[in-house]
């Protein structure tokens, strides 16, 4: 299959989901309102406790740290949840019978949600900077790299999660475990090194084994500290994130097909 057809297929999914989204007007409006309410509630909290964040992102403050974290969080979570939301007995069997390639299936199903996240990413930042005084110190190239690495990591996780969900139908124990750990260890709302102060020295080591930590870390690094990509220590940080992405993508692919084949074996592909 040529790349152009694969791209057309992804666009077809995206168009389908966009048309569908735009016709559910009430849902679309409430979603947009939620974006604004969300950023205000986090922004106010950040202003209330504002302080410098010298531990990891020198020169940055907590408002900027939290706004970037929340924005990135909103940008990436749909990647994991996007395919799962599309799974139901009416679509999965039919889509699989088209013999579509796995990456196209996964990318196609998350693309519109991702585009919507990017659209909502901008007002988040605008409100964060304009109203709450968040200060960005961004290296555009590093941000692009960090987004690409994040995309790889989260695509891998999305495929793992989807494979599990196809088998378990409801609770996905692996994603559940990862999300639980992420809430505590990946540093959405505090620098992970602070865990060493709260728990015991070295507690933050756990964080660096969680893929999401790298997503938040690299995005913050790129957007808050204007990193020099020629600096070997920065390159090493990006390399570590890349390793996660490179490992998770094939694992995710295998997991997805494990789920599909397991379900085919048990005859439960159409069950939800």
């Amino acid at each position, binding site marked *: 299959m040529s790349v152009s057809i694969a791209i057309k297929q992804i666009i077809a999914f995206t168009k389908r989901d966009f048309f569908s989204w735009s016709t559910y007007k009430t849902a679309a409006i409430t979603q947009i309102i939620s974006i604004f309410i969300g950023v205000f509630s986090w922004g106010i909290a950040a202003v209330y406790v504002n302080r410098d964040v010298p531990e990891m992102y020198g020169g940055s403050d907590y408002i900027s740290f939290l706004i970037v974290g929340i924005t990135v969080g909103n940008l990436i979570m749909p990647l994991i949840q996007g395919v799962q939301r599309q799974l139901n007995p009416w679509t999965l069997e039919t889509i699989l019978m088209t013999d579509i390639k796995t990456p196209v299936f996964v990318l196609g199903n998350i693309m519109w949600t991702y585009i919507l996240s990017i659209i909502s990413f901008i007002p988040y930042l605008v409100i964060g900077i304009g109203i709450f005084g968040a200060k960005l110190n961004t290296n555009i190239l590093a941000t692009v790299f960090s987004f690409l690495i994040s995309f790889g990591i989260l695509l891998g996780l999305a495929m793992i999660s989807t494979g599990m969900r196809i088998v378990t139908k409801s609770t996905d*124990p692996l994603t559940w475990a990862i999300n639980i750990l992420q809430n505590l260890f990946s540093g959405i709302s505090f620098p992970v090194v602070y865990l060493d102060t709260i728990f015991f020295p070295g507690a933050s080591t756990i964080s660096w084994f969680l893929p999401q930590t790298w997503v938040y870390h690299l995005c913050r690094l790129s957007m808050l500290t204007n990193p020099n990509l020629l600096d070997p220590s920065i390159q090493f940080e990006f390399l570590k994130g890349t390793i996660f992405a490179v490992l998770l993508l094939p694992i995710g692919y295998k997991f997805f097909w494990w789920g599909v084949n397991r379900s085919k074996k048990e005859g439960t592909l159409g069950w939800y």
Partner: protein
Amino acid sequence: MEYAIETRKLVKRYPTKRSSSMGYGRGRGIPSFSALINLIRGSSGAYIEALKGIDLQIKPGEIFGILGPNGAGKSTLIKILCTLVLHDGGEVYVNGYDPSKEPSNVLKNLQAVLPESRGFSWRLSGKQNLEFYALLYGLDDTESKKRIDYLLELTELKERAEDGYQRYSTGMQRRLLLCRALIRDTPIIIFDEPTTGLDPTGAADFRDLLKNKLAYQEKKTILLSTHNLQEAQEICDRIAILDKGKILACDTPDNVRHLVIEEREIKIDILPIFPDKKYDLLVKQLNEFSYVTDIQPETNQNGRIFRINIRLKKEQEITEILKVISENELKIKSVNTQEPTLEEAFIQMTRQAKKKVIKEEETGK
């Protein structure tokens, strides 16, 4: 390729205690560690055999019907062919390709109309839905447009093509499913209960489309599963009766009808007579023929007998019967033979199979 679809000793087993062994599911909260281990390893233990060594050969261009009661294994067989379920034993080929090993090649040769697998976006029009699937099937724009226009014409959906799918009637939804299955123009099409839920006219139109356009004009091989025996008799070249994972019969509908039915019934219309001693004598004489198993008169409102229904061995000729009736001075108006129906054959076969199972279980005990 000699056969479009071929199965040899095809076996499928399903685990029966899956959810309890896994220990989690909707509303059950956090999974236990052992549940996770079971999840990774796969289910083991008790299972049910949905298909017990199915042998089936379907020739290219045939309309082949799979008949069977609920739980017979029809859907399992169809889903194996559609690459949606993996078989556990035996062999299965679709135009020479094994669905478990070469799903891509199988799907280039076979598509299906499975009512439960709708997969259409309710907010998109029928045409937009088809364009979406055409892209997933890898058709380019020109090819896709041409094919979709042709299929909308074929299924008489063209005038409503721009309407939202949610506004389609059941019959139109079914025809759109057919359009989708035909987008790829595969030589084999599978239908699972194609006319269920359709009104009589819609069902007749659908059968006509299936038989005259798809089978005869486009020369496609058609496999359909149905509960509707009349439908099977009407359109299928051959049928297989499936029950509890086994094929009980596989032949033309006519041959299957006669396979288990050992008797037939003749209906002899006579000039009406009152049931008197003369009639009793006639019945006595007819009962003397060893091949006659039952005699039932039919009476009109005045109590006169106007028809005699006689059941007799299937192959028996009726000259002697007619002679006796004539000799008893009854005036014969017409003679009709009531052929066994496919429904009678189906019921008899499935009952016999059930009795056999019960007997085997009792013997086993």
